């Protein structure tokens, strides 16, 4: 493996991180919005969200990426590889995040909800002050778990021509006919990325447990 190969792998790592983080951020927000729609039983929307989650959970990320990249242009919308990849990752992770957020919301004590009403809080205020600050803590482990899964399923987006860690490693293996060094380095890179996510989760959890009144 030449120095150029190592550089390509590191560039692949930047792509994996950038696309995953973008997908995660969009996916977190979209997932929460979808979960709220279902939790609040918004008529019509709730059923649509349930259908969306069922479809996306049943669709492999590779299939979803190919569908977005090659199908959307037939509706007359041009989409480049990177936006297509971000869209695929976001749509995929949002479905799973929706269920994680929903689990947290369903589990939220009804007594507290009644209390917010008794205090005359608007639903928006109740969500901002009472519900969200508690629910995200409950959901944190599940969400971080989903984030690590997203990072590891991200090689699927390589089918649309995005060069992530795995694709960079495959290219080097194809060029040198020696797959071991690039894939070992690729594994190490994934390990580091995932380690960062888990570290952040631990730090956040440690903060939570230090807060007054934490269980």
């Amino acid at each position, binding site marked *: 493996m*030449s120095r*150029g*190969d190592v*550089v*390509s792998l590191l*560039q692949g790592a930047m792509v994996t991180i950038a696309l995953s983080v973008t997908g995660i951020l969009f996916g977190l927000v979209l997932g929460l919005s979808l979960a709220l729609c279902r939790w609040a039983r918004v008529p019509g929307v709730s*059923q*649509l969200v*349930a*259908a969306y989650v*069922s*479809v996306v959970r049943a669709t492999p990320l590779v299939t979803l990426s*190919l*569908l977005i*990249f*090659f*199908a959307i*242009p*037939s*509706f007359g919308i041009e989409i480049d*590889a990177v936006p297509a990849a971000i869209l695929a990752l976001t749509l995929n992770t949002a479905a799973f995040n929706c269920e994680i957020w929903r689990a947290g919301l369903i589990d939220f004590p009804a007594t507290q909800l009644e209390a917010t009403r008794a205090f005359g809080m608007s639903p928006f205020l109740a969500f901002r002050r009472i519900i969200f600050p508690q629910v995200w803590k409950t959901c944190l482990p599940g969400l971080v778990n989903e984030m690590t899964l997203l990072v590891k399923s991200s090689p699927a987006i*390589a*089918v*649309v*021509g995005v*060069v992530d860690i795995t*694709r960079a490693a*495959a*290219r080097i*293996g*194809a*060029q040198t*006919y020696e*797959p071991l060094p690039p894939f070992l380095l690729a594994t190490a890179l994934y390990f580091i990325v995932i380690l960062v996510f888990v570290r952040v989760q631990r730090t956040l959890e440690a903060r939570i447990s230090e807060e007054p009144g934490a269980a």
Partner: protein
Amino acid sequence: MSAANLRPFCRLRVAYATICAAAILSLGLALCGSSSAATLEEIKKRGYMVVTTEDDYRPFEFVQDGKPTGFDNELLELLRKEMPFEIKQEIIPWTGLLAGVSTGKYDVAVTAALITKERAQSLDFTMPIADATHYFVKRKGDTRIKDIADLNGKVLGIQAGSGLLQRLPELETMLAKTGGKIAKVVEYTSYPEAYQDLALKRTDFVINTVINLQALVNEKPEVFELGLPVTGKSYPAWAVKKGNTELLAAMNGFLGEQRKNGTMSKLQQKWFGKTFADLPESWTPEF
């Protein structure tokens, strides 16, 4: 829970299933609609053409130190100079490449796509850029395989979606003459994986074009050894969407010029280690 209590859930599930199926179906139907690859005129008007190349198809197209190189990429450099419009290049894995051309996402597949009957239904091919008669490759020093008949009971590795899969019956007929049979066919996403598994003894032989295999054997003479031809004539070429005749003519014009001025043979010598002087002007596949 009694059956009566479950009923609403069942109804809900049926409703979801219907919605999902309807959504997928409508998307599928929409796909059947027209998606148009740009004609030469449209390309000239918008000022650019989009070509796609593969990223790990040595020696035709591959990526070295992050830069595309190989036979087709050198031709592409020449094409850029010849054409009066800009050429955008998308480097993607094999999986979506031909689909991308037949759906109009890319205008030209600048790759060594084997001309096959099946592909000719959705794509138009340029004149051949090389000879792609298929050979088998085995591990160096594997004395069990000396002749075609020795492939009996051996495990074959091959690229999924590769043109050769349709021509496998040819080899099977050859083998059947001596009462032989391939033990198992293992399909890989790409050839490099197939070669790697051959080296790891998970398969006994891999079939690919003589060019690819010659390059492989030149690269790793201590690991692989070239075998014998396993098919009749076959040729690789560039491809455009079916019916895009003017663009096809422009590409053929360019390739014909490279044949005439000797550039084609020079590049063939450089990347394949041999030249193919007697390539046909066009090729109608039998398989």
